[in-house]
């Protein structure tokens, strides 16, 4: 479980995050949603410790992230996997070398054991046999899946995904969402996903936090999105006239069935 307590973050005079109190649960897809500039990426970077908050705390279970010394932080980070928006695969390495990198750096496994582990995670993300390809030789969707494979190769307790669907077609985006969801459930990982993809919200949002102008404007699950009367949420989720009509139709349908 990850918990934030009174997180504030400012850049010079500009306050980006204001009093963020959230809990992210294990075995669930925890979504941080919001419009561009709402502070989602800043919050995610604070959660993984890439940015220091101006004030406030982040707890991994009972461990205060920002009170750790470098060694303890390193230990904690070995339990963390992250999928970046642009995948962040190392261009000069093959897919296998990319996935093997954390194993090479932090384990004393033999080459054969590492290779077996790489094959396992590649199998898990449904990309067997692409070990020798370079990131530039595979599609954006495949790069995301390789990114996931690298993120889970050390069996992390916490998985962070920054805009996992950006730049992907809807079909591939659904595949990536389904993959993240199934990995989260089967390994009981605390998964935190930063997204503004509405499909992700409705499909995998077990625990959703909506950020608006740096504050938490709404929290709930995907089952509550349709019926919530929170205006900020409805403005954000059902932004287009088409989606608004769709929502009205869905609500009418629900009422008729009651």
């Amino acid at each position, binding site marked *: 479980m990850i918990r934030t307590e009174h997180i504030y973050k400012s850049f010079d005079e500009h306050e980006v995050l204001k009093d963020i109190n959230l809990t992210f649960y294990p075995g669930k897809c925890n979504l941080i949603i919001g419009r561009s500039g709402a502070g989602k990426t800043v919050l995610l970077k604070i959660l993984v410790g890439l940015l220091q908050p101006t004030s406030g705390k982040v707890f991994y279970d009972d461990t205060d992230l920002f009170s750790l010394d*470098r060694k303890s932080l*390193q230990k904690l980070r070995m339990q963390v996997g*992250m999928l970046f928006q642009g995948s962040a695969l190392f261009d000069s390495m093959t897919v296998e070398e990319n996935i093997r990198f*954390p194993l*090479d*750096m*932090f384990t004393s496994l033999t080459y054969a054991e590492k290779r077996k582990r790489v094959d396992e995670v590649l199998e898990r993300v449904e990309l067997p046999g692409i070990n020798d390809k370079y990131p530039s030789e595979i599609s954006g969707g495949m790069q995301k899946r390789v990114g996931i494979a690298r993120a889970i190769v050390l069996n992390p307790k916490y998985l962070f995904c920054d805009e996992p669907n950006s730049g992907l077609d809807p079909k591939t985006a659904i595949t990536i969402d389904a993959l993240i969801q199934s990995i989260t459930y089967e390994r009981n990982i605390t998964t935190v996903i930063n997204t503004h993809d509405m499909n992700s919200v409705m499909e995998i949002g077990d625990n959703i936090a909506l950020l608006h102008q740096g504050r938490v404007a709404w929290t709930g699950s995907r089952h509550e999105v349709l019926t919530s009367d929170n205006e900020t949420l409805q403005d954000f989720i059902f932004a287009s006239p088409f989606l608004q009509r769709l929502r009205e139709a869905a609500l009418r349908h629900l009422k008729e069935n009651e």
Partner: protein
Amino acid sequence: MNLNLFYHFGRFLLLMRAALQRPEKWSMYWKETLRQMDAIGIGSLVIVGLISVFMGAVAAVQFAYQLDGQLVPRYYIGYIVRDLAIIESAPTITCLVLAGKVGSNLAAELGGMRQKEHIDAMEIMGVNTASYLILPKLVAAVVVIPMLVTLSAFIAIIGGYLASVPTGEITNEEYIRGLRAYFDPLNVQIMYVKTVVFAFILTAVSCYQGYYVKGGSIELGKASTNAVVISDILILLADYVIALLMTS
């Protein structure tokens, strides 16, 4: 301006402290160090060879011109070319050129990694990125650049020979006599002290510029340019300080 200078100097010291930590895994660092040695050393052989031939040749031709009609013996050309190559041109000119070639490359490599979130990715894995990305480069540069400078000094002396002996400025015997005249081993010490200091400066400054890149391609270009300009200025400053300290 002054505060900015202190800010960068402080941040540079903190980066160097993080970079000089004990490696997480020696084998990974060793592999990276070998890769950097290849990139810095083998990758710079041609340019170092070329500039060294011309440095020696120009020194020989110009000193021949200046000594023309003087009472100074002609074999002094060999002596001057040798000492100039060892004390100044091989360490300083070579490192100034390497600051341009290797320094800009290091800044661009690290800056690109920063922009593509590769550094963040490693950081989240638990890697000490300052150490893993900078220490092998520092070690490789401090080991390989003195080798390049040694080679440069030899090639400069050969360049001086080619420009003065076949053209009839002096005889083969005079040039060799000049090379063997008044040899002071301290000059070789000065060359290696300079080289190690310059290698550290050009690598550390370039890595600092690249590691903290923010923004897009324009900022990356600026970081590369800054890496070269600041390295060059610091190399020349260090050249003066070392010359003062070791020759006084």
